[in-house]
């Protein structure tokens, strides 16, 4: 029996369906992320776990108890908001201790627990400050401590890092993960940022338009995306069309150049068109891999640790991105240079055909 169980959850607002048939079973201590673009229903689902929204159908159960109809203040669930939502009229200690005072715990126990939590979030000396005296990152850490103070059964975080600077996001992300591991608390984390979801989670629920697209570990979701939406939303992807030449042996033809996939093509017969995809980092310049494509360099983008080279394939209109690690000694090809790129058969993902709407399409519309 899973610790947190969502069964057949539906949520309609008037005519529109925000969440459609959501099922999830999370184990005790698991870190689950809901990942998807704005309006995909991830926050609505989280709010149904917290009790701020009532599902139109389905049940929410924690530790075997059905809490679907329970009021939010009867649920023992900790919540962290994007806007921090600290009480402006209370000090840091007042905020962290609020839930304990609600539970009528004796003063000295409240004080002790507050001290413990402020040490956990590395702000032991800020107990008497007011929220407005803290930076955004510090405020969010206090909000986390406040949610943890009541020893909730489930911790919910709703895009907690979106309002923060890029650098602070990474630091706080690592801190959240460390605290979650050390306490072993079951956690649901909502985000639109794939790197956050990948680096934090035990499992990721990828959502689109109210539906679950895939549930899996970061490794599974990234390397074996179930749909083309997942493939293009999680990570960067080269997506193109190829024709099946030999389904059984995984032989394909793309822009007239032959390609081999590691596994047989099962979703389409010989001669049919399929969507294939590969990650930029699976490709390399040179002739090392079993699959080779020739083309000319279109441009080179420096992304920090990664250098992305976009190659216009000789045989057609397709542009392919190739990622390599940056290196001060790296010789990057000039735009216009003729190059060969290669990749192993394992790099080729064969996705459903005909190509369905990808995340890029949805975003262009969004």
């Amino acid at each position, binding site marked *: 029996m899973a610790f947190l169980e969502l069964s057949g959850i539906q949520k309609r607002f008037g005519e529109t369906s925000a969440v459609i048939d959501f099922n999830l079973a999370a184990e005790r201590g698991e870190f689950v992320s809901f990942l998807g673009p704005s309006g995909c229903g991830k926050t609505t689902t989280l709010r149904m776990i917290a009790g701020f929204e009532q599902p139109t159908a389905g049940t929410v159960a924690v530790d075997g108890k059905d809490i679907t109809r329970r009021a939010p203040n009867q649920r023992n669930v*900790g*919540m962290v908001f994007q806007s*921090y*939502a600290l*009480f402006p009229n209370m000090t840091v200690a007042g905020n962290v201790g*609020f839930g304990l005072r*609600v*539970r009528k715990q004796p003063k000295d126990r409240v004080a002790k627990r507050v001290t413990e939590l402020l040490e956990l979030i590395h702000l032991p000396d800020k107990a008497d400050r007011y929220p*407005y005296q803290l930076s955004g990152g510090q405020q969010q850490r206090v909000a986390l401590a406040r949610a943890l103070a009541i020893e909730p059964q489930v911790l*919910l975080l709703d895009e907690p890092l979106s309002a923060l600077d890029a650098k602070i996001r990474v630091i706080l992300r690592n801190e959240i993960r460390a605290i979650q591991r050390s306490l072993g608390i079951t956690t649901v984390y909502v985000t639109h940022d794939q790197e956050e979801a990948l680096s934090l989670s035990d499992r990721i629920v990828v959502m689109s338009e109210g539906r679950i697209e895939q549930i899996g570990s970061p490794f599974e979701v990234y390397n074996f995306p179930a749909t083309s939406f997942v493939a293009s939303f999680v990570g960067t992807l080269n997506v193109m069309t190829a024709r099946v030449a030999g389904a059984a042996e995984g032989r394909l033809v793309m822009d007239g150049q032959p390609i081999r996939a590691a596994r047989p093509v099962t979703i389409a017969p010989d001669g049919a068109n399929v969507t294939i995809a590969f990650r930029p980092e699976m490709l390399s310049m040179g002739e090392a891999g079993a699959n080779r494509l020739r083309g000319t360099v279109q441009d080179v983008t420096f992304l920090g640790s990664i250098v992305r080279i976009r190659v216009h394939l000789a045989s057609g209109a397709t542009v392919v991105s190739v990622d390599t690690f940056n290196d001060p000694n790296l010789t990057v090809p000039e735009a216009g240079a003729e190059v060969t790129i290669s990749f192993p058969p394992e790099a080729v993902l064969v996705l459903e055909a005909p190509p369905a709407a990808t995340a890029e399409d949805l975003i262009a519309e969004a």
Partner: protein
Amino acid sequence: MNRLSRLAWWLVFIVGFLYFFLPLLGTFAFSMRSQPLFSAYAVVTDDPQFAETLIYSFIVGVLTIIVSIALIVPTAYWVRLRLPRLRPYIEFITLLPFVIPPIILVFGLLRTYSGGPLPLAGSDFGSNVLLVAAYTVLSFPYMYRAVDTGLRAIDVQSLTEASQSLGAGWLRILVQVIIPNLRVSLLSGAFLTLAIVVGEFTIATFLARPAFGPYISLLGGNKAYEPAAVSLISFGLTWIAMGLISLFGRGARTRVQVVGAR
């Protein structure tokens, strides 16, 4: 934003300021004509009725404030939290006292409560109740707007949900989370209400209450300079009250602004 246009703007300010304060200065100058200087003020403050009616009006004002806050704060909070679509209508209703002449209000009150099941207008106590009730209605626009502005400055929904997830019930949320963050708004609404109650004339007269408004008007019928003096005194008291608001307000406003996540 060159110098010239900045100058022009200051000019507008100064003209507006003068335009506004000239009448006050005129009144003051007039009240000074009684000889010796300030004698009009001395006469007024020596009159026992002055203090009696002022104290009566202050007590009525405080009661009005209490009733008004008790009605408005939960309503405005709930509307903002759960019924945001009702906001324009509520706002509209609270604006009505601006557009219903007080004479209609008192007319209706007297007619409704003179007989029937609730003959309040007959007794002294009942009349006091009616007076507070009428003033509460008059205070609605100021109080509602003040509270609503205050609620806008805090993130009502997130604060409520955060409190709920920590186990708090409605009463605790209101008393420990919402109201403490409305301190400035409530002060501002309260002082405005006080100012209006102290100056109100029509309703108090019709209900035959010994309030400050009717006292000024009585004075106006009999004396020359004293009404001006009384008006300026009550205006001065209000001024002090308003100054207090802006003092309280400044500190708290900076705080609220800094707090919000952008």
